């Protein structure tokens, strides 16, 4: 993803009570062809998708490069539609989508370079794991499809010699089969729509580390999830979709920094919170101080300044610091703010 987090992007987020575009533009405007931005593997420009009167995705633009990027958004935000557009399963009603420089809707050969884990659970239930993944390998024209299939299944910790049909598999095992078929052709772009659904905690960790490894290898991995704890483990790069619009993109910690209309909360544990709290009340940018047991919770408009001021004030007041912890720099806070406006 390009380092495109900016004040304007964050400040232009839609509020929950702000409706998506009521209706699509009367006519699709032609967009000039443009080469993909350097380093980007996915480029989406002014993409919109509507189904009759329903606007699923509205004027979304972003680029994504190698590494893991999490696609976040509440249910119905347009995440799956966006992912389907990335794979060419549905064309944008307006705008362009380019994967590795090509249109995924028109260039069928591009499919070999894209691995998709779709959201739906359905598989070819009469096939075994090997048959299902081997079919993907053969159709992707993979050299030595049998060996590639065995490797892909091993990657997700499934046995290649398991003769049972897929219909007998648990939800978690089916998810892993879907991941295996997506990876069997060694794709450069991997698109995963809620890939961790139904997995046990150990398998979740395993797949998360697999996705991280794929990203570290230089692949472009796009993962949608609504489980924020999981997304936080994928890495810090996010795309937030709200009501079909791109609410934010970039490093979620950087996004949090840019939310300058909302105070940052920092918890300071010390051996004597009262004198420290009194001193912090005078500090520039501080808008509120509250004492909770041995902790002082400070609300500030300038977290960086506060971080510099706290040790100085503690030393001046003779207070020993034990812990300084930002309380709302996590992904959940960012997401809640962007999606729910609180």
């Amino acid at each position: 993803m390009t380092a495109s987090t900016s004040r304007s992007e964050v400040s232009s987020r839609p509020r929950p009570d702000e409706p998506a575009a009521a209706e699509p533009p009367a006519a699709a405007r032609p967009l000039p062809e443009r080469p993909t931005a350097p380093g980007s593997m996915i480029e989406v420009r002014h993409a919109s998708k509507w189904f009759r009167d329903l606007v699923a995705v509205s004027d979304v633009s972003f680029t994504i490069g190698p590494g893991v990027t999490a696609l976040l958004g509440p249910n119905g935000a347009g995440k799956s539609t966006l992912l389907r557009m990335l794979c060419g399963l549905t064309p944008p009603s307006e705008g362009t989508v380019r994967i590795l420089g090509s249109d995924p809707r028109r260039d069928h050969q591009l499919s070999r370079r894209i691995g998709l884990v779709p959201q739906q659970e359905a598989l070819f239930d009469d096939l075994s794991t090997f048959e299902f993944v081997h079919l993907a390998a053969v159709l992707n024209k993979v050299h030595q499809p049998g060996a590639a299939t065995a490797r892909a299944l091993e990657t997700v910790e499934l046995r290649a010699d398991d003769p049972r049909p897929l219909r007998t598999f648990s939800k978690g095992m089916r998810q892993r089969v879907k991941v295996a078929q997506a990876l069997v052709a060694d794709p450069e772009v991997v698109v995963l729509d809620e890939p961790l659904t139904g997995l046990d905690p150990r398998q979740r960790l395993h797949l998360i580390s697999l996705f991280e490894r794929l990203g570290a290898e230089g692949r472009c991995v796009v993962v949608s999830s609504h489980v924020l704890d999981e997304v936080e483990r994928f890495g810090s790069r996010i795309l937030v979709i709200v009501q079909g619009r791109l609410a934010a993109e970039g490093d979620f910690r950087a996004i949090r920094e840019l939310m300058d209309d909302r105070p940052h909360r920092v918890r300071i544990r010390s051996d004597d919170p009262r004198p420290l709290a009194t001193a912090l009340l005078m500090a520039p940018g501080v808008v509120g101080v509250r004492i909770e047991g041995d902790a002082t919770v400070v609300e500030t408009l300038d977290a960086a300044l506060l971080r510099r001021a706290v040790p100085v004030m503690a030393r001046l007041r003779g207070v020993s610091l034990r812990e300084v912890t930002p309380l709302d720099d996590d992904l959940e806070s960012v997401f809640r703010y962007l999606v729910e406006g609180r």
Partner: protein
Amino acid sequence: MRTVAPSAPTRLPIYRLILRTQVTRGRVLALLALDLAGLVVGIALGATDRPLLEVVDGVLVPGHLLAGARFVNLFGLSLVVPVTALVFAAASLGDLDEQGTLVYLWLRPVRRARIVVAAAAASFTVAWPVVVIPLAVTAAATRGGTELVLGTIASSTVALVAYVGIFCALGLVTKRSAVWGLLYIFIWEGFVATAADAAAKLAIRTYARSVLESITDVPLAGTFIGAPASVAVPIAVGVGALGFATWRLTRRDVA
């Protein structure tokens, strides 16, 4: 990146996959039950005493041949062939679409025409023995003779080609392909197409019946189409429908 096998065949795996998904015990048993009912009637017709020759539209026709041809036309060409084709062909891609598994074929570097042709070939492969062989046996049971058996095989095969193409495409057009297919079979072909010559020419049954008439020399009620057209048009319709299905598969959204 992993190397690519340049000439790896892709049509055959899709064909085998669709064949496997289509052949369900319930479908085959239901259709074989229909075939069995026809065979019972065929045996009954064959066992019934009939005049050696009967006159139909000024043509002398052996009694058993006439009864057998009429039964093949009414039961086989009007019911068994289109319904069996509907069951298998509409499901070939329609079921995959509805279940959400079509994505595993669509998102591959495979030409759309290959997917459609493989689906149609799978439908034909499974439908032909379920339709044509039992109907040929039924035709033989009516004691209509070799002409009737050959006519039954030829006419039902020609009709099957057209219906498989049409219903394969229908499966990609609507999720209610069974309903629309039955409406087409019973309302259009069974009712509207019998009302006027122009409408009859838009019914596959008319061409299939004409093939049966040509081979058996038994005049059957309804519009007659000459020998080349009665074979060429259904095949052209089937191929054209597959072309439409390919276009549809290329253009449509995939879930």
